[in-house]
């Protein structure tokens, strides 16, 4: 197979620096390889790597591709369960939803590109995650996005936010996959490092599952889709660079959603022929990582000739072709002799499918340029021998300085004004300005559009539907990495349950600062412990995910921000539950320990951040009761499945009053709500702290549900069975007023249309600036 020696190659092919120059001038450092890593590469090769090989090592061993900081920690996640058909390790995870059907999903970050070219950065993030899903043989049916930006009073933040949203919409709308949900949080901690995490969900039959494995000696390897240009060379390396602007050195990729739509259709048609051995999308580190990973999974080798790769630009050398991050490309291994099948299908879609190499059995990734060897590296050296770090983790001092007592906050004289102000905070306000820019309805299966606790999408040809959500709360994870981790998973699952869905599995996007700082690494480890524990308890294994580190600028790290993407199953689409209040006369209940809600305080809450911004990082997060949470969720699910719920909405950002207000606004209905603590308190009057904790605290898992009066008996029987606290607190009114009193004293008497104005218009009015 080997056609010429490496020395000849140097002379013959390119004018790239020699291996000696790479060593002597320490060129590897500019690629992001450390001295020790370079030495290790020399050892593994038993010679000095040439320029191309050095480039290949550097991207494969970058944080982005090798997960060298995080890999060990990620092993703590539970990944198994009867529903799991494909766990982590492939392009996307897959869970069974019965009837021979399965759902594939994954979430991925595109934070660094977005910081410097928000439209294209966000757009190509969406493009990448869609490829991950259709690579598995699944038809993408829904997208979600989880976003973090600085505060909107900053012009540059508004630019980043507006362009990112436009880019996400631009890609998803064009390709015809509905964007059905997500979240947006605004906090100055993200001003320099916005987070854009995109999630894609696809549907498939069990027999369509494709994987990214290059097996079968002699099988042809094809590159399909877009031509290769000099886009984003070394993007993977720079994604791990401290300063996102360092990435400017490499070109940012421009996405072509039209091309991807064709690629998607062509690939699904190709996979359906049964002639595909393996298929993998080309994301970070392009041809290099896709080929190495495919060979590694099969324990095989690959020989590729870059001269056969269709290029967009002239004069591209092997280094550039191997490292290009041009979008909308895939690597496909076909059965021998089936090349024509691929070519025919791709021709119909006006796309190229070009054989560029073969599968071998010698475990080598061999790159030729017109038959001449340009690089030759054992696949195992790139993948299995990639560095694995034991980063130092140190408990940050700030955690021990957090105060346990309640912050001193004056009791507001006007709770309605307080509530309106909270509702107008961009993090809490309606995200309609965002999701109206997304086509959330294409495919005509979106039963619950953005705006409820979770989105719900129908499964054609069945009675089933799936519920989808992303959730994360960086400030809470910062205040308590472990408990914050628990909460992130619990909240995602709770949102699914509130829509009537049984949570199935998790995909996670772990966004953190610089892992070389022991304090940041501690946050990472401890929060993963929290996430893992909650996933275990809620029986939602992690089936796919993504890690984004080095979200840091000028020495300031973002909050540790794990984002949880979760999918749940609704067996009967007639049993979907939404969050808006429905009928006057429906009874309102709070599920969960209300008595604790009085005492848990406002630590970690949006309310504290609003009232005392300086104190918002100084008070402890209330502790979280995971067992209680599990029972609460099982109870809600049982209620939903028996059709007892008219609405359900969990208490999250902003606390209980915000939850009431949102259900009132979206339902266009007021309510009469009365809490009665007098008896249990033996007449002692409620204190100001307790009132604030009840109204604005975010410490205790609570869900507000409404039900028809005749359901009362069944609801409380089930509550006894599941040992959860259920308190009837009021009724949905026929007037548009939300009235809330505690121990017979009226605190809130709000016109819901006024609340609506505050809530609905807030982001739009910022964006008019």
């Amino acid at each position, binding site marked *: 197979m080997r056609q010429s020696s490496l020395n000849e190659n140097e002379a013959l092919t390119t004018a790239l620096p020699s291996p000696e120059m790479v060593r002597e001038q320490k060129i590897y450092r500019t690629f992001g390889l450390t001295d020790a890593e370079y030495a290790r590469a020399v050892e593994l090769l038993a010679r000095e790597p040439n320029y191309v090989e050095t480039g290949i090592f550097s991207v494969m061993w970058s944080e982005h591709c090798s997960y060298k900081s995080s890999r060990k920690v990620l092993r703590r996640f539970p990944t198994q369960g009867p529903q799991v058909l494909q766990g982590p390790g492939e392009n996307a995870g897959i869970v069974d939803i019965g009837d021979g059907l399965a759902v594939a999903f994954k979430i991925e970050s595109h934070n660094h590109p977005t910081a410097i070219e928000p439209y294209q950065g966000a757009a190509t993030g969406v493009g990448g995650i869609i490829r991950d899903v259709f690579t598995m043989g699944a038809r993408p049916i829904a997208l979600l996005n989880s976003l973090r930006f600085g505060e909107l009073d900053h012009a540059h933040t508004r630019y980043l936010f507006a362009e990112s949203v436009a880019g996400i919409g631009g890609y998803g709308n064009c390709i015809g996959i509905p964007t059905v949900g997500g979240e947006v949080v605004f906090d100055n901690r993200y001003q320099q490092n916005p987070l854009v995490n995109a999630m894609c969900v696809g549907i498939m039959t069990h027999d369509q599952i494709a994987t990214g494995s290059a097996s079968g000696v002699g099988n042809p390897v094809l590159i399909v889709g877009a031509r290769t240009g000099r886009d984003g060379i070394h993007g993977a390396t720079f994604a791990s660079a401290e300063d996102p602007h360092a990435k400017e050195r490499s070109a940012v990729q*421009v996405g072509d959603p*039209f091309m991807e739509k064709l690629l998607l259709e062509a690939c699904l048609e190709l996979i359906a022929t049964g002639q595909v051995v393996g298929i993998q999308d080309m994301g970070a580190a392009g041809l290099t990582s896709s080929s190495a990973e495919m060979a590694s999974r099969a324990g095989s080798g690959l020989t590729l000739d870059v001269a056969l790769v269709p290029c967009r630009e002239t004069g591209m050398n092997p280094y550039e072709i191997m490292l290009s991050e041009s979008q909308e490309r895939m690597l496909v291994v076909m059965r021998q002799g089936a090349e024509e099948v691929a070519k025919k299908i791709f021709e119909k879609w006006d796309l190229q499918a070009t054989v560029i190499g073969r599968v071998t059995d010698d475990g080598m990734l061999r790159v030729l340029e017109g038959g001449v060897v340009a690089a030759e590296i054992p696949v195992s050296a790139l993948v299995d021998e990639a560095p694995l770090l034991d980063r130092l983790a140190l408990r940050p001092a700030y955690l021990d300085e957090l105060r346990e007592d309640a912050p001193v906050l004056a009791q507001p004289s006007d709770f309605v004004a307080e509530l309106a102000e909270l509702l107008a905070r961009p993090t809490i306000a309606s995200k309609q300005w965002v999701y109206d820019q997304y086509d959330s309805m294409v495919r005509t299966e979106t039963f619950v559009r953005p705006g409820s606790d979770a989105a719900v999408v129908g499964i054609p040809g069945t009675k089933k539907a799936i519920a989808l959500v992303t959730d994360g709360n960086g400030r809470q994870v910062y205040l308590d990495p472990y408990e914050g981790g628990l909460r992130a998973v619990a909240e995602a699952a709770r949102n699914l349950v509130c829509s009537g869905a049984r949570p199935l599995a998790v995909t996670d996007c772990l966004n953190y600062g610089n892992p070389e700082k022991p304090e940041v690494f501690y946050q990472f480890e401890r929060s993963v412990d929290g996430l893992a524990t909650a996933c275990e308890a809620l029986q939602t294994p992690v089936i796919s995910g993504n890690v984004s580190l080095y979200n840091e600028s000028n020495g300031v790290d973002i909050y540790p921000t794990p984002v949880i993407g979760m999918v749940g199953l609704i067996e009967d689409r007639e049993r979907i539950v939404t969050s808006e209040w429905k009928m006057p006369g429906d009874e309102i209940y709070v599920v969960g320990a209300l008595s604790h809600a009085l005492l848990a305080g406002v630590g970690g809450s949006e309310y504290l951040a609003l009232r005392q911004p300086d104190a918002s990082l100084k008070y402890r997060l209330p502790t979280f009761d995971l067992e209680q949470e599990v029972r609460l969720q099982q109870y809600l699910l049982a209620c939903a499945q028996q059709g007892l719920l008219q609405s359900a909405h969990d208490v999250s950002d902003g606390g209980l009053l915000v939850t009431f207000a949102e259900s009132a606004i979206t339902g266009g209905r007021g309510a009469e709500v009365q809490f009665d603590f007098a008896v249990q308190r033996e007449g002692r009057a409620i204190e100001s702290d307790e009132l604030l904790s009840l109204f604005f605290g975010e410490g205790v898992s609570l869900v507000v549900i409404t039900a028809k009066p005749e359901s009362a008996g069944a609801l409380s029987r089930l509550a006894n069975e599941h040992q959860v606290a259920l308190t009837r607190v009021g009724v949905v009114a026929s007037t548009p007023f939300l009235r809330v009193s505690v121990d017979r004293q009226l605190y809130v008497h709000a016109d819901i249309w006024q609340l609506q104005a505050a809530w609905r218009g807030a982001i739009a009015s910022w964006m008019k600036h």
Partner: protein
Amino acid sequence: MDVLAKIYVTLKESVLDPQGAAVSHALHALRYDTVSDVRIGKYMEVTLSAGSEQEAHQLVRGMCDQLLTNPVIEKYTYELVEA
């Protein structure tokens, strides 16, 4: 003085221009066979007043760098015309 700045923004050569590619393809389908390349960019006309030609140059360059283009993927040229 009143100036009309004509600003031409194009994608950098190395950056993919999907729009240009699609149009090129369409022109071929319409039998414009001799077309070898199409790049699509933006054309902006900005009318402004400035104290001097030099200031006009400064202003136009400023707005191009700050707002009208993103140097990561685009480049621009411009002309000034007395308006």
